[in-house]
């Protein structure tokens, strides 16, 4: 008994014995490979298939058979000739199939050795390097710029997969001829055979049916486990990519941010609000206008050059229009990438080290009276940005207002200015330099929403904590304008900062108490209820004991 396989040749159905089918398929594939890249190859293949169909039909009629056997396939091969006979090698026929010169490589994705899409192993095959290096480059690019991810995606889409044996050979730059194809197919087949053989040995070694069954079951489980592991690995791979995407993309944007912020392209304020070139200001506020700014500028440009150049050459290759001197471009790009990266790291390190030490400087001013109306109307914040350069000063909008109990008889306003620096003295010098305008007119205390430091001081994490110290019995009204300044003010009702606005508060022994809040009962009754509940619980426990 023989199993048959049905095939459709030129619209006619044939039944082929299993062995005959395998042999015929191999033959036809080889013929196709030989003809594929010839002009009109598809048409020739169709003609040949029609001819084979005709020969098959003739033989079936002649021998009164239904199924095609090995004999028929051998007859076909003898009649039509070996695959290399199909190559039309007369001089005027432009064909490349068998004659692809050795070393002429094409970029394919190598899905046989892939983690994700086979891009890295394809590129490795193209450059004849170990795939590990390509993967490392991708990962580095992924984590440092995110370009790795985008490049990968684009390449994944642009580079075709190496599906046929001919393409697999072209991928490695081996000449596509029949003997090579045969060798490559054989290698693949041998791999399959070996695995199959091992499997068979394991299953037939003992001859005892029970052991065989157990073996088979074990094999089954191992196969399932293997499959599961593979799935998990793929899953982690995907997760990895997603993480990479997020991190990489952020860094990518950040790098562009550095570009945008360190370069003012011909005075075009492309990131501006109210006429201020925000980015440029920010960069100058942090980097100053000295060597670090220059280094950052050159560094970012050099760093970006590589991915851009690399992408260009790879895309050019993917679309089969290789740049004339792509290698040189890559070398230049790679060198500039490393120089740029070291410049960035050096400048970044310098800047970071100037944030090392933190010190504070305190100034206290006594206030007149014991009833206050607190406002923030002197210098008002223009936007939500932390710092920006305004004339020769650096505006820092990082003021935090707190109200605390004072044990002195009179109220006072304390300003604690914090700043960082490369050394203690550097930080101290910086901490002393700050301007925070405020004034008292009768009960009205006008504060500012930001403070200024000299531009040369640069932004080094400066912040200002303004604390209003109130003696017990004094009152303060919080004008809505101070809303942005309030920062975690403790009060007897546990109210949020935002809720404290627009009310008058009195400093009592237990803290700030609201004089005109309507919902106060709610807050207090809730606290009382909680206390009662806790007491009841305790009583219960005592009784039980």
């Amino acid at each position, binding site marked *: 008994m023989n199993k048959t396989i049905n095939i459709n040749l030129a619209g006619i159905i044939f039944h082929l014995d299993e062995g005959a089918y395998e042999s015929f398929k191999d033959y036809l594939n080889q013929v196709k490979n030989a003809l594929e890249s010839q002009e009109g190859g598809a048409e020739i293949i169709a003609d040949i298939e029609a001819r084979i*169909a005709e020969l098959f039909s003739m033989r079936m009629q002649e021998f009164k058979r239904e199924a095609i056997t090995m004999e028929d396939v051998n007859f076909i091969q003898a009649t039509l000739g070996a695959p290399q*006979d199909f190559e*039309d090698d*007369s001089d005027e026929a432009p064909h490349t199939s068998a004659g692809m010169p050795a070393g002429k490589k094409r970029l394919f994705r190598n899905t046989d050795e892939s983690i994700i899409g086979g891009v890295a192993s394809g590129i490795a095959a193209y450059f004849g390097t170990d795939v590990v290096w390509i993967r490392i480059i991708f990962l580095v690019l992924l984590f440092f710029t995110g370009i790795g991810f985008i490049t990968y995606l684009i390449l994944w889409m642009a580079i075709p997969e190496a599906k046929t044996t001919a393409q697999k050979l072209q991928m490695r730059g081996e000449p596509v001829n029949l003997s090579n194809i045969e060798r490559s197919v054989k290698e693949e087949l041998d791999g399959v055979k070996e695995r199959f053989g091992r499997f068979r040995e394991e299953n037939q070694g003992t001859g005892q049916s029970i052991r065989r069954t157990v073996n088979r079951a074990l094999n089954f489980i191992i196969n399932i486990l293997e499959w599961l592991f593979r799935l998990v690995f793929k899953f982690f791979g995907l997760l990895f990519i997603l993480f990479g995407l997020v991190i990489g993309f952020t860094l990518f944007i950040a790098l562009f941010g550095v570009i945008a912020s360190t370069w003012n392209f011909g005075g075009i304020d492309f990131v501006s609000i109210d006429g201020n070139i925000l980015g440029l200001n920010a960069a100058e506020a942090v980097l100053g206008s000295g060597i670090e700014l220059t280094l950052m500028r050159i560094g970012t440009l050099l760093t970006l050059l590589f991915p851009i150049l690399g992408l260009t050459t790879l895309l050019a290759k993917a679309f089969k229009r290789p740049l004339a001197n792509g290698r040189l471009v890559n070398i230049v790009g790679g060198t500039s990438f490393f120089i740029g990266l070291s410049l960035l790291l050096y400048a970044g390190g310098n800047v970071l080290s100037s944030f090392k030490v933190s010190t504070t400087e305190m100034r206290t001013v006594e206030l007149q009276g014991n009833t206050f109306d607190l406002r923030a109307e002197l210098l008002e914040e223009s936007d939500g940005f932390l710092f920006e350069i305004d004339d020769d000063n650096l505006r820092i909008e990082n003021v935090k207002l707190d109200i605390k109990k004072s044990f002195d008889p009179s109220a006072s306003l304390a300003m604690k200015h914090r700043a960082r620096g490369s050394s203690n003295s550097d930080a101290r010098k910086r901490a002393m330099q700050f301007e925070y305008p405020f004034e008292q007119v009768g009960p009205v205390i006008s504060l500012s929403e930001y403070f200024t430091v000299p531009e040369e001081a640069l932004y080094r994490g400066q912040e200002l904590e303004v604390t209003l110290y109130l003696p017990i019995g004094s009152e303060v009204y919080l004008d809505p304008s101070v809303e942005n300044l309030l920062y975690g003010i403790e009060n007897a009702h546990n109210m949020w900062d935002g809720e404290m606005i627009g009310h008058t508060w009195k400093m009592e022994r237990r803290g700030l108490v609201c004089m005109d809040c309507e919902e106060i009962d709610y807050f207090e009754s809730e606290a009382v209820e909680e206390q009662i509940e806790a007491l009841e619980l305790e009583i219960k426990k005592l009784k039980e004991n």
Partner: protein
Amino acid sequence: MKIDNTKAQMRKGILEYCILGILDSSDAYASDIIDQLKEAKLIVVEGTLYPLLTRLKNAGLLEYRWEESSSGPPRKYYSLSDSGRAFQKELKMTWEELQSAVTILTTRPNQS
């Protein structure tokens, strides 16, 4: 130098002319052409012919039409186009010149 190779080269050179010659007398279907060529021992296997026919057709020298067949799929019947006919005539002249030239050359008595 292999003799088989040289023989094959010689045959290949005149194959196109022979195909055009066969089609000059009557339209034919690939199998007919193959049979005649096989009989003349100009080709050994059919595979050689298909790429050649397609190339000649693409060059505008041949035309084809489909015809139903009782056994198997429809057949491609090839015929000479006008330019194919002109091409064949020119080849014929060249062949005759060649033939006489070769004859004269190879049968000339040795004179040293």
